[in-house]
């Protein structure tokens, strides 16, 4: 039997060899057979959506979409792929809600247009229009659980981008009587969607963070597991999208985005944003595409990482050390104070910041870069050295190295010498 612990391990370690479901499937099929009533019915409903998550679901590689339809879920309703149309489709929706009360999983794609309910009409029954604002909570009433897929359903996403013309909100802000699991991403990775649904079927609700995202997929920062992390340590920064190196300076939001993209990758593992030399745009963060995630190609500004925790370029680098933070933070402080970042920095899109007509930023860019890169590099060396010291201490404890070895590696002396202090 597939235990929860083993399932979680599979979810966390997909990059190791095969995809999530490939390892999961034989056991899953067995487990699903044991569920009373057979495959759980799924209703997939759209609000303010681009259908991108339906398409992303179609991109699932292992298991194939066919296996998902035939063996894992009983997809009763999905605008994009369902065979019946018109009142036949509406009949399926109503029948499922009535006959499968408490047993169906409601998947919501797209946000709920609270301000302009007329903006999304999902269908009609007996001549009465059903809008998404009323239909989604109505379907959620009798659902076992609600899975909000994609950033729009989870947090409002691009549908609520300023000025939020439709007054879109995330599902969990509207649906209160049924548990909502948020699976953000723009679009959500198919493994995240199917993995979460399977977890609900087999073990109940997954463990979630404060933003109700399953920690098995959203428990780590992109920055912390990024294969380009060492470029960051080494101060080896890309100066433009398309270059190798850490993309921090061209706007990477990896340091504030919780998702396992670096290990899972997209589209059957062939590529992912940073691997394509492109900064992460924070599509799984709660405020995407506002709240500091945009401009997409500019430095990090204040971003909500978790409730109550705001981060800046300074706090992002806290984990790295004071020098790096100083390097990046000082650069920020100076430039903000002098208004040099002017046209490149917005804290929020709703604020119109006065923009200088020329671009003084580029004139001082090179100078600052050299200075900052040097500081970051020093910091990274310190870290590496500290690792060496730990290693030496371990050897000493084991009696395999003398004290003299450590003295040769006096970090302060090394640091001073290196920097001619």
């Amino acid at each position: 039997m597939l235990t929860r612990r083993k399932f979680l391990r599979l979810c966390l370690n997909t990059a190791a060899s095969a995809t999530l479901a490939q390892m999961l499937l034989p056991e899953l099929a067995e487990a699903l057979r044991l569920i009373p009533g057979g495959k759980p019915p799924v209703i997939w409903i759209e609000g303010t959506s681009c259908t991108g998550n339906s398409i992303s679901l179609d991109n699932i590689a292992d298991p194939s979409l066919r296996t998902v339809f035939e063996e894992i879920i009983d997809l009763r309703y999905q605008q994009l792929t369902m065979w019946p149309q018109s009142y036949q489709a509406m009949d399926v929706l109503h029948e499922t809600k009535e006959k499968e009360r408490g047993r169906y999983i409601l998947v919501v794609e797209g946000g709920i247009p609270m301000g302009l309910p007329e903006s999304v009409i999902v269908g009609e029954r007996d001549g009465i229009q059903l809008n998404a604002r009323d239909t989604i909570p109505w379907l959620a009433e009798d659902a076992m659980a609600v899975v909000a897929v994609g950033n729009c359903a989870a947090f409002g996403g691009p549908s609520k981008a300023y000025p939020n013309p439709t007054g879109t909100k995330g599902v969990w802000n509207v649906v209160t009587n049924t548990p909502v699991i948020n699976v953000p991403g723009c679009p959500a990775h198919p493994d995240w969607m199917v993995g979460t649904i399977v977890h609900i079927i087999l073990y109940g609700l997954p463990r979630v963070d404060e933003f109700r995202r399953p920690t098995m997929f959203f428990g780590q920062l992109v920055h912390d597991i990024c294969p380009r992390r060492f470029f960051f340590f080494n101060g080896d920064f890309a100066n433009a999208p398309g270059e190798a190196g850490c993309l921090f300076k061209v706007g990477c939001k990896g340091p504030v985005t919780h998702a396992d993209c670096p290990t899972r990758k997209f589209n059957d593992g062939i590529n992912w944003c940073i691997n394509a030399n492109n900064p992460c745009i924070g599509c799984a963060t709660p405020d995407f595409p506002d709240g500091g995630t945009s401009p997409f190609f500019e430095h990090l500004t204040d971003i909500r990482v978790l409730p109550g925790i705001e981060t800046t370029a300074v706090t992002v680098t806290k984990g790295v050390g004071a020098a790096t933070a100083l390097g990046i933070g000082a650069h920020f402080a100076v430039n903000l104070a002098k208004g040099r970042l002017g046209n490149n920095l917005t804290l929020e899109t709703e604020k119109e910041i006065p923009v200088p007509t020329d671009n003084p930023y580029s004139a001082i860019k090179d100078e600052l870069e050299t200075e900052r890169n040097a500081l970051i590099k020093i910091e990274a060396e310190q870290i590496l050295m500290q690792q060496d010291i730990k290693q030496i201490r371990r050897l000493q404890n084991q009696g395999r190295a003398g004290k003299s070895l450590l003295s040769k590696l006096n970090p302060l002396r090394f640091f001073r010498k290196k920097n001619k202090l």
Partner: protein
Amino acid sequence: MTKVRINPLTRAHGYMAVEVDIQNGEVVDAWSSGLLFRGFEAMLKNRSPHDAVYLTQRICGICSSAHAMASSIALENAFDISVPKNGYILRNLTFGADMLQNHLRNIYLLVIPDYITAPGGAPGGPPNNDDIRLPKAVNDRIQAHYLEALETSDLAHKAVAAFGGKAPHLQSIIAGGVTEQVLTDRIMHYQSLVSQIHSFVTEKMIPDIEDLSRYYDDYFNIGRGYGNLLSFGMFPVGANNEDRIFKAGVLRNGQDNGNFDPDKITQDIARAWYRGDEGARAPFDGESTPFPQKADAYSWIKAPRYGGEPFEGGPLARMWFSGIYKNGISVMDRLMARAIETKEIAEKVNDWIHELVPDMPTINWINPLPASGEAAGLVDSMRGTLAHWIRVQNHRIAAYRIITPSAWNLSPRDGEGRKGPVEEALIGTPVANRDNPVEVGRVIRSFDPCISCAVHVLQKDGTSKPWRQF
């Protein structure tokens, strides 16, 4: 009561409905409604111009690369950014693979369920369909291909991601080129994926569509519409996107109508749920805000017109202007053209790969961009003609306008009372069973409708319908 409403019209991207007036077993009038509105043009205002490329992709989950292309081209035109050769070839390879993805999914996931019986596991369960004409052997074969398409439909998007970072919503195509490098391993993956898709298309998809065209041959005479075809040209080549591999063209009532002139494009909000400047307006001329209480409006889609007239776009228009397929204009011709275009693209991309030069630049990144500029980015996408217009002032987007292919195809009536192309194409469609008008769905789906790209409630007689209270 002679009117029948189909709501929702499933197997379309985004919510849409259609109302048809059926008399003596034939459609005599039609109203198509887009039932989804999000307001991207307002969202784009005051943002950094570079962000448009990523944000506009969020308009549509199936044709994201098309918006990336149009947006990049608009920025490149506005600021005279030249694209390196590797850049535009990689863009076309990525966009080409996304075309394959779209056409495969349109034909198998959205269109074919109208013509065959449902296999077990079909989403939503089997529908009532009284008009299945295929012999069992043919039906079963196409059904098997439907299931196979479910298994392999991820391959094309995998090819997109090879140079596009991820799909949908690519992270690679930006103004100036492509951020991904020319890597031989990636080329190898891409070629292998496209060759698998090519075999599926030539061995399965084209024979399947040919079979449909034999058993449903009356659909060569259904859904003609105005006979107006329009293409902006597809797959831009050249440092300034000056040439197109599939040529632009204009066909008016079945006759060639000179060269395409972008200045002839207008938009009209007469029957759409907006208030503002009425009348046929050039893209930047006229503001509008959502107004769902508007009497006699019935769609969120505005009415784009070329030279004052409605035009349809899509694979048929492109194959027509390229001289590859000119059999006629109908439901079945649209499906045939889509299948043939899929094959053409799967073959052409192999030639383009050989033009790539490893280790040469793929992007000409300019940041910050000049303070102001204005231009259009016109390109054909999956469903027809896609246009983005951008106006930048003071380093910010001052105005952004988008006219999508489905806005052209699914447009409502304009101020002059002219129907949209889908509405016109529905006229004359025979309907055997008015309680289950499968014929209507077939006509609409031949246009590959996508409402995500544009679009309240139907208020056909100017009366507001009651909202359901739960």
